[in-house]
Structure formats: C-alpha cells, structure tokens
C-alpha cells in the first residue's frame, strides 16, 4: 500500500476511534454523537475524498478512498460517509462540483431507473436508498428516452422520501421523483453505465462488510478469552476454537475478495470482464461471509450478543444489511453466471486466472 494511502486511512481511523466508538454510540440513543463525528469527517475532507480538488473535493485516489471504507466497516460506521463519497465520485464523473453536506446516490439498486423527461426534469422511483433521509443532495444517474445517460445533482427537499429502515437500523428509504428539476445535469462520460455505478457501490459495501467481519472476529476472540464456563475460558474449548477459526477464514476471504476488487477497480484502464468478475465476486463472497461469519460471532457470544446493549449487532446486522445495497449477491450471481455461460466453458479458466 502506498504511503499516502495509509495517511488518509489513518486519519479516518483516528476520527472513528475518537468519535465513533461503538460502545458510546450504542448507549447514546438520542444520536448526539452524529454531529461532531460528521463535522470532524468534513474538516478532514473525507466525505469528498473522491472528488478532484477543482470540483470542490480533496482529490484522494480511488485506493485511498477504498481504505477509508475498510476502516468505516471496521467501525460499523452509521453515518453516510460511503454514500457521500460515492455521490461525489458519481458527480465528478460528469465534472459536477459537489456541494457540502451529506449526499447519497440514486438509484441504489440495479433494477431501479430514473428517467430524464423532455423538459430536463427527472422522474422515477428508487427503493432502498441508503441514508436518503439524512442527505441534503442526491447524485442521480438517469437515462432519457433514447437511452443516453445523464448525471444530475438534485436537492433532496424536492423529492418525496418514504422512510425505511434497513436491517442494521440505518435509513434505507424510497425516493420518488415527480418531474423534479435538478440543480445541475450533465451527460455521463462515454462508456459509463448503471452497472458501473452499481459495482462501485458494491465494492464499497464489500469493503465495509469485510471490515465489520474483522471487528466481529476481534471482539469474538476477546470475548472468548474473557468468558469462563465449566471452570475454563470458553476459548479453551476446541469447538469454540474451531468456530473462531472458521470466522477467521470467512473474515480473511471477505477481506481478500474486497481488497482484490478495490485494487482491480483502482488500477483498471478499462471496465472489462475481468474487472466485472472482481467486483461481482467480492459482493457475492462478502455477502456469504456476512451470513456465515456473523452467525458464528453470535454463537460465540451466546445470549449476550443478542442484547441491544451489546455492540455485536452494530457489526453483524449492518454487514447483513449491506448485502442488499447496489444489488444483492443473488442478483449479481445471476449476472456473473450469464457472463460465464456467454463466454463459454473454455474461457472460464482464462477469466479466473486473468490477474
């Protein structure tokens, strides 16, 4: 990892450690932690990491931004940092300057479409948009009747938002646009499409899931070394050790898949089948790891992990919730399977062995 990459991630990590401690947040049901955290993130320029300096951002590299997301996952961060970063990145594709404040991307599911009307206004409905309720602006990808794609900056106040809650307790809202005039619209760059946006979001979520699994492993190992039963630390029971070894495997696999995909995207010269495989495989594998790994973490913690007082759910439920954003693993598995079939049996290994 490059030196500068570490500095951006370290800055993020330090802010999370100071202001996003899971235990503190879990006890604070009024949400007083949110404002200082967001302010610190903003002062450090993190929400607009992926926005070039001449578009109002801090101009970090893709790789640097990805390592911020890993760290955000390790803290099960419950503010729209990933979403704002993605929105800024999307706007920057069309060289639209990012405004201050929380943003999110619309649509957040590969099946939803927003259309550009003849008068330049936008219409459509997007489901399960993360943190829509908290966002001041939306970065929207929309297509007109001829299929040309535009990227638009929209004032959230002009849209109808139906509040929804995801598994992890974060907002996952339905956004309806009824002939909404955007603040800015520009054509999307050549070759950009909704798949690209979904996969960028998917890799962000993969990194977050992998980060959450790292934390689940850490707190599960720690707990097993504290809890005494049958006159022993439970970490001394072979069955418990094997469960933790499996959790370590799931965590390692998720992290390997997610960082590999991030590396592939950060260094891609074109968005080809190999990059598609990396991104999609990460989302599928991380989602599977969230299920298996989260299950084990709860098993090791016993009933205590099932309580609202305990912090485990902050990681386990978010990891499960993140599976659904930007296309679920089932959706992407179908797309990947179709691609593999289209390329034919003898092209499968060359695809897998491409990096």
């Amino acid at each position: 990892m490059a030196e500068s990459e570490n500095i951006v991630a370290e800055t993020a990590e330090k802010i999370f450690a100071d202001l996003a401690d899971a235990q503190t947040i879990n006890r604070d049901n009024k949400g007083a932690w949110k404002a200082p955290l967001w302010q610190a993130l903003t002062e450090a320029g993190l929400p607009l990491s992926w926005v070039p300096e001449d578009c109002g951002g801090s101009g970090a590299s893709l790789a640097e931004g990805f390592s911020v997301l890993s760290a955000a996952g390790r803290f099960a961060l419950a503010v729209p940092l990933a979403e704002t970063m993605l929105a800024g990145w999307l706007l920057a594709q069309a060289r639209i300057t990012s405004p201050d404040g929380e943003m999110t991307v619309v649509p957040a599911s590969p099946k939803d479409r927003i259309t550009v009307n003849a008068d330049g206004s936008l219409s459509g409905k997007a489901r399960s948009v993360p943190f829509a309720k908290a966002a001041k602006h939306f970065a929207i990808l929309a297509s007109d009747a001829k299929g040309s794609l535009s990227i638009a900056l929209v004032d959230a106040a002009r849209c109808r938002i139906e509040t929804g809650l995801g598994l992890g307790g974060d907002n996952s809202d339905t956004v309806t646009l009824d002939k909404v005039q955007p603040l800015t619209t520009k054509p999307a760059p050549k070759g950009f499409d909704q798949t690209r946006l979904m996969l960028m979001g998917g890799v962000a979520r993969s990194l977050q899931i992998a980060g959450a699994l790292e934390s689940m492993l850490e707190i599960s190992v720690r707990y097993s070394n504290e809890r005494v039963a049958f006159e022993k630390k439970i970490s001394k029971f072979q069955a418990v050790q094997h469960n933790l070894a499996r959790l370590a495997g799931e965590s390692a696999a998720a992290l390997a898949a997610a960082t590999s995909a991030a590396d592939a995207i950060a260094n891609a010269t074109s968005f080809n089948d190999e990059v598609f495989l990396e991104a999609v495989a990460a989302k599928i594998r991380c989602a599977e790891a969230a299920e298996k790994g989260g299950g084990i973490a709860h098993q090791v913690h016993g009933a205590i992990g099932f309580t609202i007082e305990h912090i485990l759910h902050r990681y386990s439920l978010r990891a499960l919730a993140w599976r659904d954003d930007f296309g679920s693993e089932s959706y992407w598995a179908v797309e990947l399977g179709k691609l593999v079939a289209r390329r034919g049996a003898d092209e499968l290994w060359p695809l897998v062995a491409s990096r």
Partner: protein
Amino acid sequence: MTAALRFDPIRLPSECEQLRKEVRAFLAEEIAAGTFDPHKPNREDTDVPEFSRKVGARGWLGMTWPKKYGGHERSFLERYVVTEEMRVANAPTRRFFVADRQSGPVLLKYAPENIKMDILPRICRGEVCFAIGMSEPNSGSDLFAAKTRATKTDGGYLINGTKIWTSSAHIADYMIAIFRTSPPTKENRRHGLTQFLVKMKQPGIQVNPIGQITGQYEFNEVVFTDFFVPDDHVLGEIDGAWKQATSELAYERSGPERFLETYYVLTELVRAVGTNPDTRSAEGIGRLVAQVHTMRRMSVSVAGMLQAGKEPVVEASIVKDIGTVWEQQLPHRVRDLAAFVEETATNRETLEKQLDFAIKTAPKLTIQGGTTEVLRGIIARGLGLR
C-alpha cells in the same frame, strides 16, 4: 492479531503472463499428442515419466531454487502459474509434484552439500520422484505420536516400523520421513523426531499397495525392517524435526492444488448449460465462480508472501481449510445444478462420469495434507486461543 489475516491483492507480473502462454501451449501440444486426456481425471495413466522429463526440460521444476542446484531462480509467482495451469489441465504431475513443492525445499534447507548436488539437479530434470513419510498407523493428525524407530548404528541408523498412506511410495526414488530417534520429553512431547532422507528400492523396505474408493491406486503402507540409512542422510537437527515439519507444511497447504482438485466439474457444467442458461443455473454458476475466484486470489497472495520470504503458516492453513472444504462441496453443488441440464447436452456423458469420480474423490480432500480439524487448531493458535 488481524494483521496475520491480510491477503494483499498481489497482481501477477507480466513475466507470469508470458509464462502462462508457454505452459498452455505446451499442455495443448501434449494433449494433442495423446500424452494425457484433460477430460479424464480418473484415468489410470497418472504416472507418465516422459511427461515429467519434458516439464523438467522446459525449466518448470525447481523454478525458485538456486541455479547451482539445477534450479532457475525464478519467482514463487511464476511457479504458481505453472502449477495452476497443470492442475486445471489435469496434467499427470504425480511423479514430480511432491519433489518440486515440498521435498526439494526441505533438501535445500537441511541436506548436506553432497546430497544437494546429487539430487536437486535430478529433481529439476524431472527424473526423481519423492514420497513423504509422516503418517503411521497410530499417528496421522497427531504427527508427534510417530513410533517408527531410527536406532544409531555404525555409520548411520537402522529403521524399524511402518509408515502408512504414503502417496507414490510405489514409484518413488526417495522418501523424506520422520523417525523417532529418542523418546519425547516431559516438557516437550514433540521432541525426539528426526527427519531423514530415505533411498527407496533397497533391501529392508517393503511397499504394500492400499486401494482407494475411487478405484485408483495412489498410497501405500511402507514397512521398514532393519533398513539402513547413512549418517549424511539425516536432515537438519537430531530430535528437532518438529521445528522443520511446520514450515514444510506451509508449502503443502497453500498452493492452487488445494482448491482446484475437482475444478473440472465446474468447467463441464458450464459447457453443459450452454450459452443461455436459466436463472437457477446462472445463479449457481455465478456463486461457484465467485468462490473459486476468491480462493485463487488468496492463494496467489500466499505465493506472494512466500516470495517475500515469509512463512505464512496461518494463512496457508486458512487457504487449505477454506480451499479443501470448497473443492469437496463443489461436485455436490454441480450435481444439484446438473439435474437441470438438458438430456441432449453434448458433454452430458463426460459430465456424469466426471461427477461420479469427483464425488468419490471428495471425502479425501479435507484429510490429505492435514485434516480440517487440525488446520482449525493451527488457525486458533494463530488467533492466540491456545
């Protein structure tokens, strides 16, 4: 702690891509010449001495070893590429693979110079086959329960006892084995084992075949009766084999052969479903491909750690654990999906035969090279639990 579990996204350098092309071209030629059939992993002719020599002649054995021993001073990543291409093509690697992966590196580290000069160049030429003598009838997972004795005598040691499950002992020229040179101590029950180089096909050694449920013959019982091993065939420290065995196993546990043994059924499934699969088949294939891709990225990453001179014992155990569990499940998942394949699929018969064989192979995958339970114990130790 978590630092141990990072698998950096190593990218194979460009020389690897060139090498991959050469290996593929070579394998295609050999297939065309009828040396082996890539669609028949269950064939009888898994030992093909000419094939070994050709692979050696290409410079693909002992790739990472010093030139003075016949090696090629290339990278672990280049070796990785050769291994995975051979594995995916179902090439007959039995004769040379153990020597290349495991025995050679042990000799490099622990053998006296005269032995290195004698044997390593021959391994590189694909002329010698090695077996590994660790397991015994009452010592498998519990490696340190090994009882086969090496008793000091004039100029060497006399060996008495039995090794079991010894792959390739029937064709091997040498075995690297652990024998008991003294009893375990109270403080350290691992103490007292020594690693030896054993020359096969000598008096005092008897190799008895053991059949396998796949119908193949691969491993053996090896009985030693007053078998003589000269002093310069001791490898490393007397009574200290336990330190040596663990790093050897890092080589054995992380390679592409640890998740690709049943891979062929996936290729055949893709062929059978055709270019326009239904949703269920597409989803099933997509999930399986995501798994194999992730395994491979982890395994490449471990090759990168070896290249960097690390001893990734825990990482290798993780790759072997997830990898063998995956390759064991794969034939069963492919079978689930094959139930929906058209009767008329052109490769239906091949797919069915391959599935039959892969399902019979599956039970051994999580046993060979250390059982899943043992590996999870090693990972648990790496997590600081023991």
